[in-house]
């Protein structure tokens, strides 16, 4: 049986309540951390665990914590990024609504480790019902002495605030999130200074994803080394994967990092295979931003070895033959999927969500959407494919925040691996614009 760090008790009836969560061993990590460990010792365990940011960037969490500036007399803040908006990703939504106390417990431990006395959970506004669930959990924890003044008699004070967003993907970018939390438009900030030095209200701030923070209870209880023993290589621990698309069992799965991609797609324990009568065409493995891969490349590395669900294996081969683990938003497409249409759909998303601050992104995302729209609707020109590649290249790396890259990669990778399909749309517009028409040319389906 694979190790479950976050979801072990998730199906216990009533787990959303304090009492049931507590009965399953909940909040023992808070007791252990606050009563027997110094903040530095907690940071040390998180460092040892090797856990990497689960929002998508994959930056080591302990290292991020150690960058936090600690000037005298200045408050420090922990902000949880629960603005989950990356298409294909719904794990934090699931975790928070099902087992809210896991996040609350993680917030207490993490805030203690960082020396924060007021911490925020920034939840996308669409999840207002989840905000109510979290607020209820906070009330319960407070009533039991795990939040508020002098927690468990240790002298440590902590207040948690749940903040709703207003519907803006860009606020998942940490500095845009901080702007939004300050009551402004979600325009990402120039860096440096980094939030670790000047973040919320110009004070030192750490921003971590829900899933990252939720791991800290287990790490405190079992130690960083035990956590690092799970997984493979530098991909330590477990990861929540949001599986969607043309599979038999969509849902959120906690996997030990290192599971073969093939097993994840076909084993009954996880996705349960492609829906009956269909074949695998392509996968977007880490949320809509990461490069799309055709069936043969998602299952196997360029050298023929099996590809694994880990940071390193998914990115093996760079963008030529690889992709990224990203947020773990695993979108599976069978042979009925039109790659051009899906790429246009994603391009429209990034155009819609660009904050408009940087010209390459503001103009480039709109341009890509327009060109993809005309290809998909039978009005494409031969030079459009190269034009898209060119625009994508000019956005990438030329913006304040990674939204520009996130917009460029799906387009560039779709053309890289499915160029024939784009050409077919341009040379056979009448056929390609028939309802439900999909390119059936040379293609390796699995």
């Amino acid at each position: 049986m694979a190790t479950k760090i976050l979801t072990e008790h998730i199906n216990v009836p009533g787990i959303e309540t304090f009492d049931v969560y507590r009965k399953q061993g909940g909040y023992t990590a808070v007791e252990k951390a606050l009563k027997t460990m110094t903040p530095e010792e907690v940071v040390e365990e998180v460092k040892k665990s090797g856990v990497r940011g689960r929002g998508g960037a994959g930056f080591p969490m302990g290292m991020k914590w150690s960058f936090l500036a600690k000037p005298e007399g200045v408050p420090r803040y922990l902000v949880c990024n629960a603005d989950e908006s990356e298409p294909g990703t719904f794990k934090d939504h699931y975790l928070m609504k099902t087992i809210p106390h896991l996040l609350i417990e993680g917030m207490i431990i993490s805030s203690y480790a960082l020396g924060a006395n007021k911490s925020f959970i920034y939840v996308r506004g669409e999840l207002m019902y989840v905000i109510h669930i979290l607020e209820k959990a906070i009330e319960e924890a407070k009533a039991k002495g795990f939040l508020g003044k002098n927690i468990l008699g240790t002298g440590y004070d902590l207040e948690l605030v749940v903040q709703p967003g207003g519907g803006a993907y860009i606020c998942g970018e940490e500095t845009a999130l901080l702007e939004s939390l300050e009551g402004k438009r979600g325009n990402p900030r120039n860096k440096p200074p980094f939030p670790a030095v000047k973040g919320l209200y110009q004070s030192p701030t750490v921003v971590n994803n829900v899933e990252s923070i939720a791991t800290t209870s287990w790490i405190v209880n079992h130690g960083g080394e035990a956590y690092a023993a799970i997984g493979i290589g530098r991909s330590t621990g477990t990861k929540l994967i949001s599986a969607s698309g043309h599979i038999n069992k969509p849902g959120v799965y906690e996997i030990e990092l290192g599971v073969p991609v093939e097993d994840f797609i076909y084993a009954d324990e996880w996705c349960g295979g492609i829906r009956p009568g269909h074949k695998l065409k392509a996968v977007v493995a880490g949320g809509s931003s990461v490069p799309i891969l055709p069936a043969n490349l998602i299952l196997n590395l360029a050298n023929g070895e099996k590809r694994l669900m880990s940071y390193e294996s998914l990115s093996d081969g760079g963008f030529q033959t690889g992709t990224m683990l990203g947020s773990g938003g695993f979108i599976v497409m069978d042979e009925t999927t039109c790659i051009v249409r899906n790429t246009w759909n994603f391009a429209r998303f990034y155009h819609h969500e660009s904050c408009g601050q940087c010209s390459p992104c503001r103009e480039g995302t709109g341009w890509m959407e327009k060109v993809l729209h005309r290809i998909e609707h039978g009005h494409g020109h031969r030079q459009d494919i190269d034009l898209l590649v060119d625009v994508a290249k000019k956005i990438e790396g030329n913006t304040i925040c990674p939204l520009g890259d996130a917009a460029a990669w799906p387009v560039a990778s779709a053309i890289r691996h499915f160029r024939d399909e784009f050409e077919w749309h341009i040379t056979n517009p009448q056929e390609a614009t028939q309802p439900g028409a999909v390119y059936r040319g040379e293609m390796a389906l699995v």
Partner: protein
Amino acid sequence: MTTESNNTIQFTPDRLEKAKEIIARYPEGKQKSALLPLLHLLQEQEGWTSPEGMDYIAQMLDIQPIEVYEVATFYTMYHINPVGKHVIEYCRTGPCCLMGGEDVYAHLKQRLGIDAGQTTVDGRFTLKEVECLAACGMGPVFQIREKYYMNLTNERVDEIIDELSK
């Protein structure tokens, strides 16, 4: 929009209490952080974020009205125009489309007789296209206020519309 304050809008007593509690959450002098939550509160009460309502919030937070307008127009959840009784926010993003989201959407539009951004003549429904709602494993999805409606089919859409039309 006017910057003159000529407020006819006020929070109901319980919402005013809630607003005060929200403003008190933030550190001294950082009350502007309450802006997004207060706009949600306004919309919950009024159905939309009207100019008068935004001016009222500006006064409450002691900030310029433009600071409220620029925020309300940036975030897609705030309705800056009047809307119908039920605002259907339909996910149009890739993963939902893979699950037949476009066909179900066409059916919904036909059923309501309106396009995105429009309101039915009886004022009951407004249709709005939104991006990913973080429920991709249960697509197609739409949201009405706080409630998620998932695994949508044409039949399910008809049931929901029938129910809300009563």
